[in-house]
Each structure stands twice: as C-alpha cells, then as structure tokens.
C-alpha cells in the first residue's frame, strides 16, 4: 500500500466512524436508557477534586464520565490514593469529598467536622461491593463453603482440598488430594479489613484475629492488590483467595458460594445488594454509618460484602465546591447511576437505605 492510498483509506474510515458516532448519538437520545437518564442530571459547573478509596475507583470513574458528558463545564477529578490518604486530603481541605471503604472512625470524625466550617462531616454510603472466594482447582466447577471452613482455610488450619470439612459440604464434587495454595493481600487494604470483619463475626470460634487492613494470619502467600490476587489465582493450580467481585469476573475465575446457615448463596450484584439493604444504621441521623449483618441467614443474601462511602460536609464545605459536589452526589445516588454499578461488578445501594442516602445528599447545603 503506498502513502496516498493509505491516506485515502484513513479518510474513508474517519468518515464512516464519524457517521457511526452521529447515528449512535441520535439513537441514544431516543432509546438508550442510560443516556436519557443522564439527560435528567441536574447539572452544575466548575471543578472539584476528590480522592480516596481504590475500591470504588472504577465506579466513580464511570460516573464522572457520564456526569461530565452530560454536563459541559463540569470537571470532577477523583484520585484513588487509598481511603486513609483520601480522608487526610479531605481534612486538609485539599478535596471536596473523600471516598472511603469504611465510615469515619470515632477518632477521625471530630477532625473531619472541624474541616467543615459551620457543620459536620457526613458519611454517605454510595458504592457496594462483594468479596468473593475465587478459586482455581482443576475439575472443580462448583464449591460451597461455610464461614468456619473459610476461616479454617485462611488461618491455615485446613490445608488440603480433600479435607473432610470441605468434602462434607461438597458431596457431589471430587476434590483433589492437593495442598491449598491460599492467597491474601500483601498490601494494606479495605478489602482485607471487610473480609476479616466477616470472619470475626461469622466464625468467631475459628477466626480469633479480629479485623485489620493488614493481614494478620500466618501461612499462605501475599500478593499486591485485587489484580495481583486475581492473576496469582489464575496462574496457580489448587489456589483460593479473596478478591472483589469485579476482579473475579474480569479474570473469569470461579467463585465459591457461601452458606451462612440458610443454604449456599452465589455472589452477584443482587445477592450482595440484599445484604447491604438490610444493614442497620448506627443512628438515624443523616450521617449514615452502616453495620453490616455478616451472620445474615437468607437464601438470597450473600454475606461477604463491603460498603464504600463518600465523605463530605453537610454544611460549610465552601461556596466554590458546594454546588458541583451536591449535584454530582445527587447524580451518583440516582437510579441510573446505581444501575450502572452492577455492570461494573459493583453492588448497588437499594431499598430504604437508598432513600436515606438521597435524604442525606439533599441535606448538604
């Protein structure tokens, strides 16, 4: 192909491409649900910065994309620096809101309140997630685990795949006589914190290490990040590890069902949303700190979930950030935005909790 035909080919491709875009844009306005919902966004302009949890990075990135394409003149910049660093940025007035994988701790709440000139800081649950037990065992396509067995695998008291404790739960499956290659996070992480919260609550007689962002048990192997765990599982036979749902889906890993006492429940957006919707609130204020019931016994509620929050000021955020922050969070709490979550491997907030979240966002002024 010589240069001139190449150029002509490129021009033709460009024309075809731009036509396609034009057509899809027309179609979007009339048929596409997401776009028509985006049109309802109560837009604001300006630019705000936010930072925090890596767990909600992809959800927020998607929302920012939708928001900015619907609202010209608005820029939202979210840096996934980790929850603690995000809260520190917010306290130091570097950002308009922080993303965090836990509500503000009692010792952090006064600092965050002090950052809000005339009001208090709010915890607003916005993005849910499910922590799956992903595994890679040749010939095993379905696996059911109970809290006690999960705790046993992760504190290294169950070390073989054909251990009777696992085999009794999976009578229809032939488990290999192989050592379990157990993977946990080597970095500090909210996923580890929430997973160990589950183990401590649902299997207190086996898991005696409490919860922490750092992995406290001995044995097994550490890998960095959800992606590190997923690729380690992918490349290691007879392995199991805890990883967030979206990463298990992206890596096409098999995931175990969890039996909390009311039958095996598969992890997906619906079953995890059911658990999050039933979480109790620490108090009835618009500062929504959730307490997840990890021992939930229901045939359609997957118990190992995490909830990530947006933290901002109810009052006194500062006039330059206020309108856009409120408008953006109003959008993220909308049905359209929450529906987006499941497509990205996240879990939506639903039911009465979502109503409370919207009331909390509406109280920002």
């Amino acid at each position, binding site marked *: 192909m010589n240069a001139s035909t190449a150029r002509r080919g490129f021009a033709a491709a460009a024309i075809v491409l731009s036509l396609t875009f034009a057509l899809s844009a027309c179609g979007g306005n009339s048929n596409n649900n997401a776009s028509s919902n985006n049109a309802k966004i109560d837009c604001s302009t300006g630019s705000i910065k936010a930072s925090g949890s890596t767990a909600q990075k992809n959800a927020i990135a998607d929302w920012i994309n939708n928001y900015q394409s619907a609202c010209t003149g608005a820029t939202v910049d979210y840096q996934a620096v980790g929850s603690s*660093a995000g809260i520190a940025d917010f306290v130091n007035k570097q950002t308009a809101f922080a993303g965090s994988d836990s509500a503000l701790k009692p010792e952090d709440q006064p600092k965050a309140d002090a950052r809000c000139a005339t009001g208090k800081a709010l915890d607003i649950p916005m993005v849910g997630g499910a922590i799956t037990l992903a595994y890679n065992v040749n010939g095993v396509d379905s696996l059911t685990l109970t809290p006690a067995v999960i705790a046993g695998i992760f504190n290294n008291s169950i070390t073989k795949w054909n251990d009777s404790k696992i085999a009794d739960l999976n009578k229809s499956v032939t488990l290999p006589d192989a050592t379990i290659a157990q993977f946990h996070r080597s970095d*500090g*992480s909210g996923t580890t914190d929430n997973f160990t919260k589950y183990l401590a609550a649902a299997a207190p007689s086996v898991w005696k290490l409490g919860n922490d962002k750092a992995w406290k048990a001995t044995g097994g*192997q550490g890998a960095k990040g959800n992606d590190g765990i997923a690729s380690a599982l992918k490349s290691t036979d007879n392995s199991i590890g805890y990883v967030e749902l979206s990463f298990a889906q992206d890596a096409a890993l098999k995931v175990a069902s969890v039996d909390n006492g009311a039958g095996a429940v598969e992890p997906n957006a619906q079953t995890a949303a059911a658990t999050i919707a039933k979480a109790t609130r620490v108090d009835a204020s618009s500062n929504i700190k959730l307490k997840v019931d990890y021992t939930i016994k229901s045939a359609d509620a997957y118990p190992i979930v995490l909830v990530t929050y947006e933290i901002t000021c109810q009052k006194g955020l500062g006039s330059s950030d206020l309108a856009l922050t409120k408008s953006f969070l109003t959008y993220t709490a909308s049905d359209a935005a929450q529906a987006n979550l499941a497509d990205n491997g996240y879990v939506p907030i639903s039911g009465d909790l979502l109503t409370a979240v919207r009331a909390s966002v509406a109280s920002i002024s």
Partner: protein
Amino acid sequence: MTQLLSPQVQPPLGRSSRPRDAAFAGISRGSGIIVLFTMGAIGAFLLWKALPALRANTVPFLTSTQWFPDDPQPKFGIAALAFGTLLSSVIAMVIAVPVGLGVALYTSHYAPRRFAPTLGYVVDLLAAVPSIIFGLWGLQILMPNSIGLWRWFDQHLGFIPLFNNSQNIYTRSIALAAVVLAIMILPTVSAISREVFNQVPPGHIEAALALGATRWETMRTAVFPFARPGMVSAAMLGLGRALGETIAVALILSATFSINWHVTEPGGNTFAANIALKWNEAGNIGLGALIASGLVLYIITFAVNMAARVVVERRRDFSGAN
C-alpha cells in the same frame, strides 16, 4: 589539548585573585553545603515525623518482628524488615557483582574492539528499564519458570538451611526477589567498573605483558590493584540500589513479618517494599511507623556507604594508582 591541561598552565592552587575563580569556588562550596544540608534535613524530617509513633509503640522497635501500628496498642518493629532487606540485597550482590565485574572486564579488555561498545551499550540499557517492568517480569515470567530450579536446590542442597524448603512452595520468595534485584543492579556494577578498568594506564598493562604475564596475570597484577577502589564503589552503588528498590520487590514478595532463613519459601519483606505496600491505607501511627522504618533504611544505607569509603581509603595506598 594536553598542553592546556598540563600542570604548568593550570592556575596555582589556593587563594585566587581572579573574581571568576572566586565565584566558581563559591558555587562549588555552596553545592557541597546544599548536599550536606539536604541529607541532614531528610534525617531530621524522618525523625520528627517518626517520633510520635515511636513513643506510642508498645514493643521494642529494633527487635520486634510484628507490624500492627494501627492497633489500639500499636506494635511494630523492624527486625524482619532489616533481615529481609539485608538478606535479599546480599544475595543479589553475590550474584550481580561477579557477573557485573566479568561483563566489565570482558568489554574493557577481552572483547573484540568492534563488538565491545555494543555489548557495553546493551548492558547499560538494562539500567534504563523501569523497575516495575523488572517486577512484572519477575512475577509473570521468572517466578513460574524458576520453580524447578528452587525445587532442585531444595532436593539436592536442602541440607544447607538456606536452601531447605519445608513448605514445598517455591514462589514469592526472597531468593526470587534477589535474582530480580541482581539483574537490576548488574548495569550499575558493570558500567562503573568498566569505566574504571578503562582508566588503567596502558603503561601498567604493557609492563605486565612485557614481563611475560599471561592475560589473566596481567588482570591480577596490573588491572585489579589499580581498579580496586572503583570496583568497591561500583559494588556499593549497586548495593545501595538493591537496599532501596521498592516496587519490583513489593510485587514479588509474599510480605510476611518473620525471620526465615529458608530463602526459597514464600515470605520476607523489605523496608522499601513494606512502605509501598502499607502507605496508602496506613493510619496516623501507621504512617509514623513507616517513616521510622524509612529512617532505619536511611541509616543502614548511610552506614554501608561509609563502610565502603573506609575500604576505598584504606586500599588506596596499595592500589598503585599513585
């Protein structure tokens, strides 16, 4: 050119009457002071940030192997970190220094003249590869393909505690990290020692050859004595890089807080890797604890460099360089 540089034409040492010389002396002295000041400021900053955490710590900081700084009763110590850092760096040195010196010697004195610059260039190019690439390569390529090697070490040399592997898992180990570190510091070691080998006065080499020395005897009697301080410096710069390497090690190691001599078992941790892994989600005490560990790494690196200086100074008299 040689005329210009000869001693007769150089301005006399000491106090100079020319303003340009004074300005240059001032700039040089200023740069030196800035370096010292920066070093001091880094140390002071680390200490200042670390003190609150060190005060809150409930276990001995230097000898404890736990790392739970954000517990209600903060517990953290650097023993396991210091162990992992030094062990992985020392193994990396054991692999990289002989190979690096060999590469340098080959490119400077053995390789055909047409071929030598290319080889040197290729080795130098290794230094331009970002460390995350080395980390990913170690994790995705080297780790799965080296399992057999580590198993062989375990089965045939398992009577040496270092190579014994009681877990029968051969991944994410200190040994693996050390091999990756060795490749990362290879260009540093080889580039500097090559330059030093090239500085050996041709007269020394010709004299050795004239006395009937073989090639290897020439290296031993003429090249090594002259180059020894440079070789030590090269090794120490490599060690400095290995001690401080962060992301490649963080990706590979299983990051446990234990002192385990079985280098092929998963586990181990280093100062820099631990800081990278824990920083994002560390609380107030956690950040202080990480900074305190950074201070210890700073002191260790400082001590290693001072030791290298001492070695170089002591050897200088016998090097034949003067």
